[in-house]
């Protein structure tokens, strides 16, 4: 299933990272992770928190960058893996609810 719009996401980094908040669009969301398009220069191993809304529910999921590369437009595409099991289960429930209503 594809959403009519790309889900926007706020990117927050741990204080020790000394990085400004940034933003991006979720190209893909699953219970295991997400694919994100962003102008932020993410690199493999980076830790961040992703905040977005899904089906009216606010999500704030800690994640780690598993793989990242520049796309043809020069933006960064990052494959993220969720690192918090509790939040991950909450996202899975939201996805099941959303997809069952579609």
């Amino acid at each position: 299933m594809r959403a009519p719009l790309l889900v926007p996401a706020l990117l927050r980094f741990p204080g020790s990272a000394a990085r400004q908040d940034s933003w991006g669009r979720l190209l893909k969301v699953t219970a295991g992770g997400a694919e994100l398009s962003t102008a932020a220069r993410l690199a493999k191993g980076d830790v961040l928190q992703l905040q977005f809304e899904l089906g009216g529910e606010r999500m704030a999921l800690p994640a780690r960058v598993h793989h990242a590369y520049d796309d043809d437009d020069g933006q960064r595409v990052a494959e993220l893996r969720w690192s918090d099991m509790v939040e991950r289960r909450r996202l899975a429930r939201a996805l099941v609810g959303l997809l069952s209503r579609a």
Partner: protein
Amino acid sequence: MAAIGVLAKEAADRELLGLMLGELGHRVEGAARLEEAVEFARERKPAGFLIVDGAGADGESLTRELLRAFPLLPVVAALKVRDANRAVALMRVGACEVVAPPWTPEDLKASVSKGLRFQGTALSVAAAAPLSRSPLWYVLSVALFLAAGLGAASLKRAERNRAAAAARTDRWELPVRHPAGLAFDGKSLWLIEWFTQSFYALSPADTAVQLVRHLTAETPVAAAFTSEAMWTVSADGTVIRRMRDDKMTPLTRYPRAAPNSAGIAFDGLYLWALDGRARVLRKHLVDRELSVLATYPWRGLKAAGLLFDGASLWTLDAADRRLMRHALDRPQDVIAAVPLPEYAEGAYVPVGAAWDGARFWTVGEAKDGKGPARLVRHKEEPR
């Protein structure tokens, strides 16, 4: 290339964005007000719209109104002031891309071309499939498989070599005379020299100098690294959090937060500082004031360095020529000690220590202060 509308209240913004988009090959039409933009969109049917948010223009309502009239029109927003929450709010009302200031042709090109090929997020409960790999990845995989298949003989030989290397102590003479500390950033060793107010990044493989940075405004005495920030301490006790870029750009200063510093270390949550004069270890919360959470007595004779090895704190005692291990929950106790026989002759005094994930490194200053400093990679300690 496609026609693009630019909706910006200020003429200077329209002109700048028009020039940049023109350079990218787009035909551009500027509009100062929403009515003009709607008129242009109705008549010319542009491929997309670029809206400037800020300086009196509410990009959120402009985007909403434009999309109300033309629901399938890709809208890209350009922020006058960088604000991640604002960017997300604009995307929520329908902007497909948001460009951060300062606007550059590269950013505009990426955002506009992506906006013109706009699609929705793919939703799935199943875990993400791995991204498609390049042919190089498959070639490397096969090469790795073959390498692994070479057999136990080569593995055994490598293990023998590794054991021999682990038992060996290496020494290098350095091109500096007055080292003040040592730190490891995950790739390089960082030597701090107070006399020339310099940082030297050294390769752990051969101690080749990879980078030199001079600080003219302060005298550095210690440093520590987190995954993305560098912390330094000056002789007056000022702690500075810096970006890990080539310029070591300072981000935050904490005046006199770590007086008489013999070393600092970051344990992943707290910043620790060893006060050589007061002989105490201080645990700092990384907040606006770098508040001291607790102070613990340090039971050594002459404090010379502090490091974190991923599990425990280690302090360097220059008088006893040994490294002392401290548990994070009871740092006042010494739970183990590693002697440094390399300094037994007394020609060198250890002044800094670092941990590279496998071994300790120390740097020593010639006792008379005239000879070159010496870097020592110590033998691997059983863990």
